[in-house]
């Protein structure tokens, strides 16, 4: 299986090498990075390992957005409010210095204890949260701050108010805004990248995943409940739709994998932050050399190329 998976990756590498890269769709350095990823991955994820990722991605001690902010940014100023109705604590936004440059950062924020979890709605934003995120995106664009988005949301929130306040439209418009930004954008799934709630803030020039993060169109439980008519078959569902980072890389959905400490990000938050910081820096440096028009064109072309059909 390991060999099999490695073959897949090598195969993709070969195809990338031979590809006529239309209109600069792929950023330079892609091949080298894929090679490095390949060298690093020793074994491909088995069904058991996929499930372990699901568990680690949801681990209650896993570092959240503000844990990384604290370790990676100087002069952090959190901003609040959608300038319309509310300040949604499930999604934090702000400005800070990252390796000397000002960046705009947004991220889902889960809670550590039951009170904070309720306050932050388990990281699941309301439409007001997406609108706050859009405000930060506009601020970033206006002042040419690169945008970093940390994604960690079980899924869009299924609530009465969320629907009444226009959740579908808010998620659509957040993506549309990201597709229009003239600044470099990097998204990283740091835990659960759940469905529309995740993609709302992940239409980025570079999309990364931490090694044990998952990225899904529906949670394993939700998928199992529908297709197997039994939410307990979640493990089976996960094995079937493969939400792990390696498979996402293989499908071209993400651009790179951010390593975690042995045993998962929660075992060593400082080291996790260091590794995340290195990947973000690498991505930003590469993007900062690209002209704004090209950035936007490449970003859209990348997402418009996703899908497999005949």
């Amino acid at each position, binding site marked *: 299986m390991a060999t099999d998976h490695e073959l897949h990756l090598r195969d993709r590498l070969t195809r990338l090498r031979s590809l006529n890269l239309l209109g600069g769709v792929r950023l330079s350095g892609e091949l080298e990075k894929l090679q490095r990823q390949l060298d690093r991955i020793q074994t491909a994820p088995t069904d058991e390992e996929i499930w372990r990722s699901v568990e680690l991605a949801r681990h209650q001690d896993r570092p959240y957005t503000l844990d990384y902010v604290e370790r990676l940014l100087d002069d952090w100023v959190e901003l609040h409010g959608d300038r319309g109705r509310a300040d949604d604590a499930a999604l934090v936004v702000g400005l800070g210095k990252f390796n000397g440059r000002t960046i705009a950062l947004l991220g889902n924020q889960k809670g550590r204890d039951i009170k904070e979890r309720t306050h932050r709605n388990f990281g699941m934003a309301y439409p007001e949260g997406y609108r706050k995120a859009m405000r930060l995106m506009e601020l970033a664009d206006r002042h040419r701050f690169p945008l970093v988005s940390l994604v960690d949301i079980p899924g869009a929130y*299924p*609530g009465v108010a969320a629907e009444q306040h226009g959740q579908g439209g808010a998620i659509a418009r957040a993506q549309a805004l990201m597709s229009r930004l003239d600044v470099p954008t990097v998204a990283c799934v740091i835990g659960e990248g759940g*469905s*529309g709630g995740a993609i709302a803030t992940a239409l980025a020039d570079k999309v990364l995943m931490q090694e044990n993060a998952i990225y899904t*169109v*529906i949670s394993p439980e939700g998928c199992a409940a529908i297709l197997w008519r039994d939410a307990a078959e979640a493990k089976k569902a996960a094995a079937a*739709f493969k939400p792990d980072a390696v498979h996402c890389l293989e499908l071209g*959905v993400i651009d790179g994998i951010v390593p975690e400490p042995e045993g998962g990000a929660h075992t060593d938050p400082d080291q996790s932050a260091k590794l995340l910081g290195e990947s973000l820096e690498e991505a930003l440096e590469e993007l900062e050399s690209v002209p704004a028009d090209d950035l936007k064109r490449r970003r859209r072309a990348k997402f418009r190329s996703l*899908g497999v059909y005949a």
Partner: protein
Amino acid sequence: MSSRIDVSIEHRNVPEPPGKQHPNTCPECQSHYRDDELEAALWVCPHCGHHFPMRARARVASLVDQGTFVEEAAELRSEDPLQFFDLRPYTERLAEAEMKTGLGEAMVIGHASIEGTSCELAVMDFSFMGGSMGSVVGEKFSRACDSAAERGVPLVSVTASGGARMQEGILSLMQLPKTVCAVEDLHDAGQALISVMTHPTTAGVLASFASLGDVIVAEPGALVAFTGPRVVQQTTREKLPEDFGLAEQNLRFGHIDAIVPRPELKPYVSRLLRLFARNGD
């Protein structure tokens, strides 16, 4: 962790199964019709106005000037990138859907004219796997945007979708940013998207291109919600408002521009096409 489970079932807002009721029996007033009666009435109950589901080809025929529709990208078919197997293989489900509907996928695209004005069309069909958005729906919509941009005409989308194409996993989710980027490219080319939401327009389709219409209209009684009432009720245990998630509620909350009954849709869209036709350039 029960909340986690509930929370996640957000991509399957299929309307309640009609039970053993015949598809030509009106679920609102129980009137029963022959096929040709319903067809003549655009599948709107002559008695109570209930809007029955409408198939993609019938929808196209009801909107365009006769004989002007030229289909595009009809040959596209889904692959099975994950070799997905639940109780049955994805490939089998696809084959069955094609047999049942006579369509290669849940969306039909092409160009046409409506009351003499040219446009591009992208029309979904709920009968094909619940109108779920997989790679081919995303690609067809994306091509429809490009075709509209090249021809310099507006794009009219008619949506009907119950959720994600789970069998394509994360690639199904990626059709959201894909179609969003396609709309943005269409807008940059100066063309409009007119979004017509029919029952049901939910989940990923609502959270992407359908909500980006320059003008958004819905049919009466259509469910227009990211998460449908059943899942919301399971999660929140709240009593839901009477018209929760319906077009009427969406109008009241400011999410759509109008509710247009099916018989008025063609002249309404036609008027919009005249308005969005380039001002003399």
